[in-house]
């Protein structure tokens, strides 16, 4: 199938396997190093970078405005009310955390499965994780109403003689998300140390040599160091894998532990994790496709990567579809009046349109990715990544809003209509995410050079035919 679809004379296609190559042929250790480090070490900042940076910076300004107003006036400026007390803040929190999950999946789980194609995209997928967690972590904090007392969530000795209550999933969240943020930063930074050494050695400016030198901790590439480094990487990957699965599971428990119809189900943890990875891979494509075009990295982030991301999205999308159908089935099979009504309300209630947006974006359209022609078309895959991200946002909207607006008692029903401050805060975090990403691609090597070198054919140690010389003495 593979060889039939791809042009035979395309140098990007491996003639033996018929698969697209992970790295374009003809690269050397030096050429991959230069290609990646030049983006950072050049004194010439591309105009397009400035443009994007300034636009993203404008959105950050909008976020600061929205948050300042929020601090002055309180959460009443949002549309949250009773019964919908969670609103945009929690929708965005869950959405952003989910996006972060693909970064960990790429850097940790695919490392454990020895999927070496991940090497070129893992660094910026990890950066994506961190920036997404930054955006995510902000929402529960500003949602508590008095963010300056946010540290009350942590167990610390205080004069009030008060301690947190560990039986609540909301507190579990604090530990899950803070651990996730810390481990993601550590994993990202540790993975960058050898590359920072390369940057130090290749930088022409005194300031660059000094800063990268400090950041690289004086890395000198000793094989003893490399072996410990490899062990630590594998251990961190092994630790990050159960961590990432636990984070979204814990978040889903915030919902599942409540007794609300539409929330109180056991399918939530696995279905949240699959949805997280689904939207995260979509975000990887949303970022990778423009970056490879803008910085001419088609040699290193190849069609193979886009094709593989498409396959992962297809697989996780199917798990998500299974989750949706299980929800529908269970609401019928439970024979519970409330569950039955919840599903009817979700599909045909006043906000039924959002359910159908979600089904279209997350289940119907992504089926196009079964076609290899579609998965290898960069433009269409970019479009698909945006569609899936939209769909996953609506999934959280449906879960949070439709369940809350109409619970057991019709007299307590309500409605939900986001205000401009809700939209500004959400758009602002999109800006913050992009802003941080622009800084990252300008100042740090976005592709792990040492791992690319390892993937080149010349990296293999070959045995010599002649025997080793005898010991001298």
């Amino acid at each position, binding site marked *: 199938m593979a060889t039939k679809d791809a042009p035979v004379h395309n140098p990007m296609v491996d003639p033996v396997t018929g698969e697209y190559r992970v790295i374009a042929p003809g690269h050397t250790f*030096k050429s991959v190093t230069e290609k990646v480090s030049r983006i950072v070490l050049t004194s010439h900042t591309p105009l397009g970078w400035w443009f994007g940076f300034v636009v993203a910076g404008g959105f950050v300004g909008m976020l600061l405005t929205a948050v300042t107003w929020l601090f002055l006036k309180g959460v009443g400026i949002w549309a949250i009310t009773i019964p919908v007390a969670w609103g945009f803040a929690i929708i965005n929190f869950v959405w952003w955390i989910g996006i972060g999950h693909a970064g960990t999946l790429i850097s940790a789980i695919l490392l454990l499965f020895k999927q070496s194609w991940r090497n070129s995209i893992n660094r910026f997928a990890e950066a994506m994780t961190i920036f997404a967690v930054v955006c995510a972590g902000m929402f529960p904090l500003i949602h508590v109403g008095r963010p300056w007392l946010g540290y009350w969530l942590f*167990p610390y000795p205080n004069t009030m003689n008060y301690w947190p209550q560990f039986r609540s999933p909301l507190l579990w969240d604090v530990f899950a998300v803070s651990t996730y943020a810390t481990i993601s930063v*550590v994993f990202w930074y540790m993975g960058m140390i050898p590359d920072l050494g390369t940057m130090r050695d290749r930088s022409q400016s005194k300031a660059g040599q000094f800063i990268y030198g400090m950041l690289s901790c004086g890395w000198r*590439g000793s094989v003893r160091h490399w072996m410990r480094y490899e*062990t630590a990487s594998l251990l*961190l990957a092994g630790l990050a894998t159960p961590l990432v699965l*636990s984070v979204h599971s814990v978040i889903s428990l915030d919902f599942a532990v409540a007794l609300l119809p539409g929330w109180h189900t056991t399918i939530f943890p696995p279905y949240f994790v699959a949805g997280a990875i689904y939207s995260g891979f979509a975000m990887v494509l949303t970022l990778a496709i423009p970056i490879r075009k803008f910085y001419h990295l088609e040699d290193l982030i190849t069609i193979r990567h886009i094709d593989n991301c498409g396959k992962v999205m297809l697989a996780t999308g199917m798990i998500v579809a299974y989750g949706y159908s299980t929800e529908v089935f269970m609401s019928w099979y439970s024979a519970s009046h409330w569950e039955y009504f919840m599903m009817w309300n979700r599909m045909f209630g006043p906000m039924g349109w959002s359910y159908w947006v979600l089904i279209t974006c997350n289940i119907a359209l992504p089926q196009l990715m079964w076609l290899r022609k579609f998965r290898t078309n960069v433009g269409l895959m970019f479009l698909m990544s945006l569609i899936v991200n939209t769909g996953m946002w609506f999934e959280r909207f449906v879960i949070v809003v439709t369940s809350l607006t109409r619970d057991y008692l019709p007299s307590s029903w309500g409605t939900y209509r986001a205000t401009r401050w809700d939209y500004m805060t959400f758009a602002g975090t999109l800006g913050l995410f992009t802003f941080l990403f622009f800084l990252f691609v300008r100042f740090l090597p976005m592709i792990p050079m040492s791992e690319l070198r390892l993937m080149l054919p010349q990296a293999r140690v070959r045995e010599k035919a002649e025997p080793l010389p005898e010991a*001298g003495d």
Partner: protein
Amino acid sequence: MPLPEGIYGLMAEFDSPSDLVHAAKAAHAEGYRRMDCYTPYPVEEAAEAIGFHRDEVSLVCLIGGLLGLAAMFGLETWINVWAYPLNVAGRPYYSWPAFVVPAYEWTILYAGLSACFGMLALNGLPKLYHPVFNAPNFRNGATTDKFFLCVESTDPKFDVMETRSFLEAHTPVSVVEVEY
């Protein structure tokens, strides 16, 4: 303690990982022990060639993880049973299944931090100055595309002339003296 006078060692530069590994194996067979290889990416065979087989990072990580588990589980139990017992709908104070989640997270947190910082500590990093950076060709290649074998002067078998001729027999690009 290495003496500050004299040289740190002799550094041979190679073009390919295979040449480096063969030279390192030969040096080990020759009886050299105090030496190190410097490569732009992990070359496992080179580590084996100079007799470096196991590291303690896993052990540090395990100890860290167990500490994290004990710390959080202990904290939760102490808080909810002794320090601040709170009756939530008649549930037991010692609700261990609920304590598992934060304890699990802290196991991972401590284990991960121990793996990273343990690795750095065992490597003796951060160490911003090291004699190998004095080799004129080192910074240009060691983190990009060249492979180095440095035999250190503290090795009992080290002799500037003999070691140099030994290294030169293994087709290096160059052999240079490394100053302290």
